[in-house]
């Protein structure tokens, strides 16, 4: 009688652990892909700026080991003519490796696109996206 209860308990516990484990896997699987934290990035997506920004900085939500510096980049592109004005890279001075940045040259009044690609070191999760901002004329 006691043994049967023990077996049931063990079975129940195993099932519970399996479910928790699977949930954890699912949660970590989706969290692994880098996500742009738009509200912490500058310029913010869609911003209309009065003057040329000094730099572009993108902040990501990414797992503990951060972004792969050799595979994570962004391109600042002038929309008319599609020419690259700057290439952003992982900021190695940030310990979490979740920031990409670049110092910009002076930008003429125009619309610019930031195209980013981010790869997480922990599990090679790939994500990409783009947003635009504009520098207004004087």
């Amino acid at each position, binding site marked *: 009688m006691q043994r049967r209860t023990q077996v049931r308990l063990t079975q129940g516990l195993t099932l519970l652990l399996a479910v928790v484990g699977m949930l954890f896997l699912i949660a970590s*699987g989706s969290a692994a*892909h880098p996500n742009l934290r738009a509200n912490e990035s500058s310029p913010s997506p869609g911003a209309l700026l009065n003057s040329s920004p000094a730099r572009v900085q993108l902040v990501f939500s990414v797992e503990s080991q951060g972004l*792969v510096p*050799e*595979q994570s*980049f962004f*391109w600042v*592109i002038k929309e008319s*003519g*599609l*020419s*690259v*004005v700057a*290439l952003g890279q992982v900021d190695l001075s940030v310990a979490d490796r979740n920031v990409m940045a670049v110092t910009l040259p002076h930008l003429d009044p125009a619309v610019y696109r930031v*195209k980013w*690609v981010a*790869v997480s070191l922990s*599990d*090679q*999760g*790939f*994500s*990409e996206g783009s947003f635009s901002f504009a520098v207004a004329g004087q």
Partner: protein
Amino acid sequence: MKKVSFGLSIVLTAIGLGLLFVGAAFGHPRVETSNIADGAVFNLTQVPGQITLTFNEEIDPKRSVVYVVRLQGRRIADNGNLFIEENQMTIGVNALDAGVYQIRWIAVTPDDAGFSEGTITFAVHFDS
């Protein structure tokens, strides 16, 4: 005399149009050949160990890149071993499982910083 100038104007117009086309192509690289065609389907044993994209013009090795992404789960499937020289980019591919994959390239010209990007999608299935 009139005929000559008419002929000349046709030639000049043709040259002008030719220059326009060259100007349009110049600056925005496109893939001319790839050893994996868009839409290709491979057996596991047939998948090339590396992917080579040849562009219509020189590309900048510092600002150009290519990724191979397994679409299910969106994880990198290349080995990160990227080599770019003149108008070619080559990347090594890990041993692939069955699935759908996308080659995603971004290319920038070295002289006038023209940007372009594109994708090539292919599938790998088990031998039957």
